[in-house]
């Protein structure tokens, strides 16, 4: 296994997205360099139900909102966030 050129990230789904995908998290392995957008593409391809996710969802890496062109590293936690509705 070539760990230097691949990353495994933990992807978390919340609220309506968790219902659509039918799970609250998944492990995704992908070749580096990779962006959050690559993770989203992989998730939409690999998980039944995830094709209903938007192509450009709100996303966070390691508890911070990021743009989809942000790079991911091995061990990162990537979260896909439905439109925020708190308060």
């Amino acid at each position: 296994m070539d760990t230097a050129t691949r990353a495994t990230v933990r992807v978390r789904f919340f609220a309506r997205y968790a219902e659509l995908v039918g799970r609250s998290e998944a492990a995704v392995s992908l070749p580096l360099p990779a962006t959050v957008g690559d993770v989203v593409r992989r998730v939409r391809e690999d998980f039944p139900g995830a094709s209903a996710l938007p192509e450009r969802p709100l996303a966070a890496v390691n508890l911070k909102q990021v743009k989809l062109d942000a790079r991911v590293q091995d061990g990162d936690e990537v979260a896909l966030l439905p439109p925020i509705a708190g308060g």
Partner: protein
Amino acid sequence: MRNAELNDMSYVTRSPISLDFLVAEVASPACGGTCVFLGTVRTGPDEQGVTAIEYSAYEEMVEAEFVRLLTDARARWPEARIAVRHRLGTIPVGEASIAIAAAAPHRAQAFEACRYVIEEVKRRVPVWKKELRVDGSEVWVDPSGRPTARPSHV
């Protein structure tokens, strides 16, 4: 000391929010004005037959985002003392989902800081709500105002 308090505190609760406790957190002899904001679960013409709202969150990020948000607020109003709680879980109509207390030497800063915190919460704190209705249906609330209908049994 202040940082230690910040790190130990949770901004999230699953119980009814104690306003007395929140106001006590910001009370100071130097503060002449305290502004309190309560966001409460409502039913109305636009939310027909809502009995409760189920709040869910990315809790680790909620805590991190509140630390960043309050750091930003304290940079803008250095003399203000701010406390906030967001309640999660199922909250019946009429009860508070969020409470903010902002105290400052003068009322203008208290009002401004309080307003800033609720607006930023709406913009960046990852919380979601699902309306539970009298007829048994459940509707995710889209902040743009467009509810996404889905059958209750799914």
